[in-house]
């Protein structure tokens, strides 16, 4: 824009000043130019003082365009990272065949004083989708609800290293660091970023490569939120040091239900063939056992247990691919809080010197006050008709697991039904 001024205010360039642009001139000596060019030729148009001016103008325009592109994030500076700028194509590659095909729909991560953080990002192609959800866990629904069912399942392994997070090849979740978002109050669950690939796989082997991809994604998402919140620190990706998930091939030994030493099934309850043989004879009990006993012959239950020393130890006892019984020890108080509201939900009271709970034929919950905070113990029957020996098993389970979880020696006594 100021090319003329620059040329004009330069008194030294008198060689240029007396020769207006566009006027033909003889070719300079050493230059081997064969013939004078037509007036419209670029070399002629850009001759003399016009040339530096034009070069300057061009440079300026280029810089301007580049600057604008950079500022607005377009052109070569286009930021095509997805989910709040957290995930680049390389991050998606391990999961989606063609990252370029992935379409992201995202709602920015927002904060409300009463409800905490919330954000959603859905990455989809024609063949599938991955949903990223940022939310504060809800103490009313998320323990016994779908979140607890899916994200605390034994297919997920703990991320370790002090991280409150777990991962499998279909689910991954990680809590936001407390140093950034604060410690949740008594009435709040932790705030997590979770990833759901849509499939709810239960029994097949875990694809460790896809698990690593989901882990890396969830870590990058958390780091992006740290960044946006102005918090320092970067969560180190634990993807290469995750333990192997349970392959479901190690059966439980007799007298060690869910591999808890000394946890025996009550004598009247027999797994598999035992219930088969006498099921047709008796009334209530046999019909309860009908489903679990029928069809699978002598098959012993398969057990899947969360490996490692993480915030949760979940044991799923499955038959024919269906989980019949889940026993959980939730030793991180932030997750144990998800089960607190169900502590008195069932008819039979459970008491001990350092905690209490309740129990029914199918389910049980107990919360113990331990040095690390509350530890929750949970038993759930997940099939409709099968009668699992929860009533007899659960108090012994709590006692055995309390010692392992560092709560010391607990004696759990079951009271009579409290009238409910």
């Amino acid at each position, binding site marked *: *824009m*100021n*090319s003329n001024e*620059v*040329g004009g205010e*330069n008194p*030294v*360039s008198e*060689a240029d000043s007396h020769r207006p642009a566009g006027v033909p001139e003889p070719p300079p000596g050493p230059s081997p130019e064969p013939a004078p060019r037509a007036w419209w030729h670029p070399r002629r148009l850009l001759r003399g003082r016009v*040339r*530096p*001016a*034009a*070069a*300057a*103008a*061009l*440079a*300026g325009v280029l*810089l*301007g365009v580049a600057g604008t592109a950079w500022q607005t994030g377009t052109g070569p500076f286009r930021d095509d990272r997805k989910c709040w700028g957290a995930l680049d194509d390389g991050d998606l590659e391990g999961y989606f065949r063609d990252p370029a095909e992935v379409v992201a729909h995202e709602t920015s991560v927002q904060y409300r004083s009463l409800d905490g953080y919330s954000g959603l990002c859905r990455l989809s192609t024609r063949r599938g989708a991955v949903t990223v959800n940022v939310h504060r866990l809800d103490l009313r629904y998320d323990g016994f609800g779908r979140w607890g069912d899916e994200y605390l399942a034994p297919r997920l392994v703990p991320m370790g290293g*002090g*991280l*409150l997070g777990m991962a499998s090849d279909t689910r991954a979740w990680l809590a936001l*660091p*407390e*140093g*950034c978002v*604060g*410690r949740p109050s008594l009435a709040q669950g932790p705030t997590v970023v979770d990833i759901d690939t849509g499939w709810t796989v239960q029994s097949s082997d875990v694809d460790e490569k896809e698990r690593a991809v989901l882990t890396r994604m969830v870590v990058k998402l958390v780091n992006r939120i*740290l960044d946006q919140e102005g*918090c*320092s*620190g*970067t*969560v*180190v990706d634990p993807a290469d040091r995750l333990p192997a998930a349970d392959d479901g091939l190690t059966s439980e030994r007799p007298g060690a239900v869910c591999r808890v030493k000394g946890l025996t099934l009550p004598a009247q309850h027999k797994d598999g063939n035992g219930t088969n043989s006498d099921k047709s004879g008796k009334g209530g009990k046999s019909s309860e056992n009908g489903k679990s006993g029928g069809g699978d012959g002598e098959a012993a239950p398969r057990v899947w247990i969360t490996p490692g020393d993480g915030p949760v130890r979940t044991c799923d006892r499955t038959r024919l691919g269906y989980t019949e019984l889940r026993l959980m020890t939730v030793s991180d108080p932030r997750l144990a809080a998800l089960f607190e509201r169900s502590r008195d939900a069932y008819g039979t009271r459970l008491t001990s*010197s*350092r905690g209490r709970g309740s129990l029914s034929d199918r389910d049980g919950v107990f919360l113990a*006050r*331990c*040095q*690390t*905070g509350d530890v929750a113990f949970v038993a759930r029957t997940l099939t409709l008709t099968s009668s699992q020996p929860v009533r007899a098993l659960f108090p012994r389970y709590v006692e055995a697991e309390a*010692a392992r979880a*560092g*709560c*010391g*020696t*607990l*004696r759990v006594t079951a009271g009579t039904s409290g009238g409910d």
Partner: protein
Amino acid sequence: MADETGELAGREGAHGRGTRGTGKRRLLAGGAALALLAALAGTWATHTWPFTGDEHYCWGAWRENSGPDFLGDEALEDGNGKRVGTERAPTPRRPTGTCTVAIDTWRTAGNGDKVTHRTEIEVTYGPAPKGAAERAGWVVDHLGGDALPLPDGLPGTVHGLGGTIVLPKRCDTADGRPTVVTLAAGSTDTWSRGSMAGRAGLGGTRSVAALLVAAANRGMEAAGCAAGRPFELVSPVLQLPERAESLFTEACRIPGFAIDKVTGSNLEYQVGAVDRDLQSCSVRLQRGLGRFYDAVMVAEPRLAALLDGVTGDGPPAPGWRGTGVFTDDYGIVRADCAGRPATFVMVSLPRDAQEAFTDAVTGRLGCDPLAPRHTQPS
């Protein structure tokens, strides 16, 4: 600006040869000198490099207007305040040092009362105290309370107003004691009628950890034991300490760590770290009115080295496992637990509380108890 540089470059290419070039070159040189001067004036005026004018504190580890609030201009209340740094860096010949940053501000409250605010942040570089009793007190002060382990497995602890980091073995004193860098901050608002704790502006636990690590790295360099491997802080702070809780039955929810009800009514307990490297439980008089009981277990090797030399030669008391010393004021005992030595420091604890604490730790770590078996409460 952009056009100008492009123009100059273009002209240089077209007319750089011959006699006419000298004048042009002179002009170019003059222009460049002018531009440089302008740039320098600009940086000077805006206080950017190299004319920052920013003070450095703590042996060059911290810079004014970087990081947390107390280093920024806001801390000075629009000119009604001053920030003063004093320091003595460690040297290879005298490997101890201190530095302080003190901020004094004053303002007039709505009722005309003059309110002064003082924040003081102190960093020390040097070994932990030598005597066993002082060492025990030092350890519970720095590793107990609401201090949690530093991120990234760094050998130390941090809380909202301070932290401690144990330097590598190459920085040990001649008598084998580890050198430690500590950071402690205090802040008070004072007015005509009294005073109360104020905001120190350290920026939270993660920021304290960063300040501590920076000071430790600078201190090691100054003392000549850095060996090119500084501490590196990468991770965020994953977990914050729980709140102190009123003590009704068992301190820190540890089975059997009970205090009789009359005394207990004015006490609160603070659960600190509870992991395989470090566990702590502190009992305090409420509202910060003094300490009552302190118990710490260290297994992290560099932290445990803080207690080398004061763990005695024989069992601390008849029937106890490991070696240690129990006096009326404190108890120190070290024993193998699940494959590595665990060292316990217990200050002012009665015997049954010592047993309860050690039992809780060994139960959690999965090793035999240290105390002789007694009837365990259920």
